[in-house]
């Protein structure tokens, strides 16, 4: 165990003593998330944007709402309207019918004024008493703003790309400097060596998760319905898993360029497929099983379920199994195929 401790210390020191690593691990993802979060923050200025879902009588409703200067109304499909409501692009969605139904997002301050404005507009037409002109339905899934969706995905992506780049980069550089060869000639246990990369990485992941939680909470008021302990455990599992994938990526590569290409090859498809910026349900059904087996999907889905739906560890069996598989498999391969010279 002494050797493992010393190896983990080596990794921690290597990372701590390289300021650029700290930058890419903490500052960069933080700034990225800030910028993205700000870009998608709900804008409270200008007219309140509402939409009427297509259906019988929809056009008439739009006409009426357009009479109100504080409202900007449009006609669109229900699916699109609901999606844009969830992303904070709309304050209210009106579903036409005998009694029109208004969907609002209770976490949006604009939702309230939108409801009042719409209610007044419909009442002013004088067809029915205000109380029966429409019923308001809060869209009550927690954290359904875009930034709520985005933050867990960004944490997952950050865990992935940092683990891949830091682990694979170090390994390839050690190979180039013949340090791997030198280490291979000692009685050092191979498992200890790989474990040290994973364990040291997970120490950094702890700090990363804490950072994300802090700014998600204080800057964007992203709700936290689950437990921070569960979130941290999943974050650690993710860091371990992606460090292991990082070992796999660096298994044979001799040059930093080759390694960089492989890291991109692994991480870019997952960034799109695994629901970082938009939900992976948008991809066709035949692709879904593949997406489900990707480690980033497992992490993102788990982080989102914990933060936004209060999921506990017990309900995350499947994604944890996927992560475990992606942790163990690369290590087994690396123990056989890793290039030490």
């Amino acid at each position, binding site marked *: 165990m002494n050797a493992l401790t010393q190896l983990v*210390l080596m990794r921690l020191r290597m990372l701590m003593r390289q300021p650029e690593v700290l930058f890419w691990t903490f500052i960069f993802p933080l700034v990225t998330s800030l910028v993205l979060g700000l870009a998608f923050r709900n804008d409270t200025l200008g007219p309140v944007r509402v939409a009427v879902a297509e259906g019988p009588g929809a056009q008439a409703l739009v006409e009426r709402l357009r009479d109100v200067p504080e409202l900007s109304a449009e006609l669109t499909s229900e699916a699109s309207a609901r999606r844009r409501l969830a992303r904070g692009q709309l304050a209210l969605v009106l579903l036409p019918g005998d009694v029109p139904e208004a969907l609002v997002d209770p976490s949006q301050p604009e939702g309230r004024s939108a409801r009042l404005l719409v209610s007044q507009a419909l009442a002013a037409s004088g067809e029915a008493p205000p109380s029966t002109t429409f019923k308001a339905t809060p869209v009550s899934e927690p954290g359904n703003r875009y930034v709520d969706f985005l933050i867990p995905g960004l944490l997952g992506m950050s865990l992935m790309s940092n683990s891949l780049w830091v682990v694979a980069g170090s390994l390839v550089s050690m190979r180039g400097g013949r340090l791997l*060869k030198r280490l291979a000639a000692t009685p050092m246990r191979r498992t200890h060596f790989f474990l040290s990369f994973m364990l040291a990485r997970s120490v950094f992941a702890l700090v990363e998760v804490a950072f994300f939680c802090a700014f998600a909470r204080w800057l964007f008021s992203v709700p936290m319905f689950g437990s921070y302990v569960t979130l941290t455990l999943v974050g650690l599992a993710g860091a371990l898993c992606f460090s292991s994938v990082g070992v796999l990526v660096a298994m044979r590569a001799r040059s930093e360029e080759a390694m960089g290409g492989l890291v991109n090859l692994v991480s870019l498809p997952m960034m799109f497929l695994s629901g970082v910026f938009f939900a992976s349900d948008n991809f066709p059904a035949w692709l879904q099983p593949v997406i489900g087996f990707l480690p980033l999907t497992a992490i993102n889905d788990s982080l989102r379920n914990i933060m936004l739906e209060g999921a506990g560890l017990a309900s995350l069996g499947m994604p944890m199994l996927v992560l475990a598989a992606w942790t163990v498999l690369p290590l087994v391969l690396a123990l056989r195929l890793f290039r030490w010279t």
Partner: protein
Amino acid sequence: MTHQDELAIEVRGLVKRFGDFTAVDGIDLDIRRGECVGLLGPNGAGKTTTVEILEGLQPATAGEVRLLGMRWATDAAALRERIGMTLQETRLVDQLTVEEMVRLFASFYPRPLEVEALIGLVQLGEKRHARVGKLSGGQKQRLALALALAGDPDLLFLDEPTTGLDPQSRRALWDVVAQLKARGRTVVLTTHYMDEAEVLCDRLVIIDRGRVIARGTPRDIITSLGAEQVIELEAEPAPDLERLRALDAVVGVQHHGGRVTVRVKELHVALPEVLREVAVGGGQLLHLSTRRPTLDDVFIDMTGRSLRESSEAKAA
């Protein structure tokens, strides 16, 4: 326990091919415990490949290798605990301090030497808390040696340990190797420095193009040249080499880089004759010196090339 006289290293018919290229072409070695043996030869001769096969870092294409009575195929784990080594141009972890680096390597071995002792052995005590990245080339080589010794190895491999070092660091390294020999450790080193080989090694194995071309003590190998002295001269124009070779006292003649090297048996007989040849050729003497023959002269005699030249040509 093993007997004192047992062979530390036993190599039979070692062959290593990379595709069409044969790097090692049938090498035999017998190295006794407590011996310091130097593998000598120009770069590309197959020294490093041979040593890396011995270290278990490369598989052999053919041949038999036994270290301390064990074989890599069956006893790799046990062997790694009992050998130490320095490789050429290893970049250690720049972010660690000297002490942290030594402690890391010591942690790999079942019976390591004390970290303090290792650092003291290579005279890096003052640099204990310095980052590896800040060390000079010589200090890094000494650190590499401390790492090689971390497990208190029975068998030590040093691959060109002093290449590119300042004289002071070379001396420091030589001192450590001398101490190890005194403690009965077996040392195998590769070098293309003649003085290093002569100072450190009990026996030498000279390798060229993957084959052993000479072996024995440094003294025996030099004596095998049959020359007692070497005359070096520069003359304009140079004397006729064929006429020099014909002289009785002359063993061999070489001419390169404007300098004529004449290996002779009896200096007092040969020198006047050689000078007369210069005069006969109408040459003006620009330089004249005499010295004892070195291993380099042996190498030139056997291959027509200088050890150092061929290694420097490769480096350039």
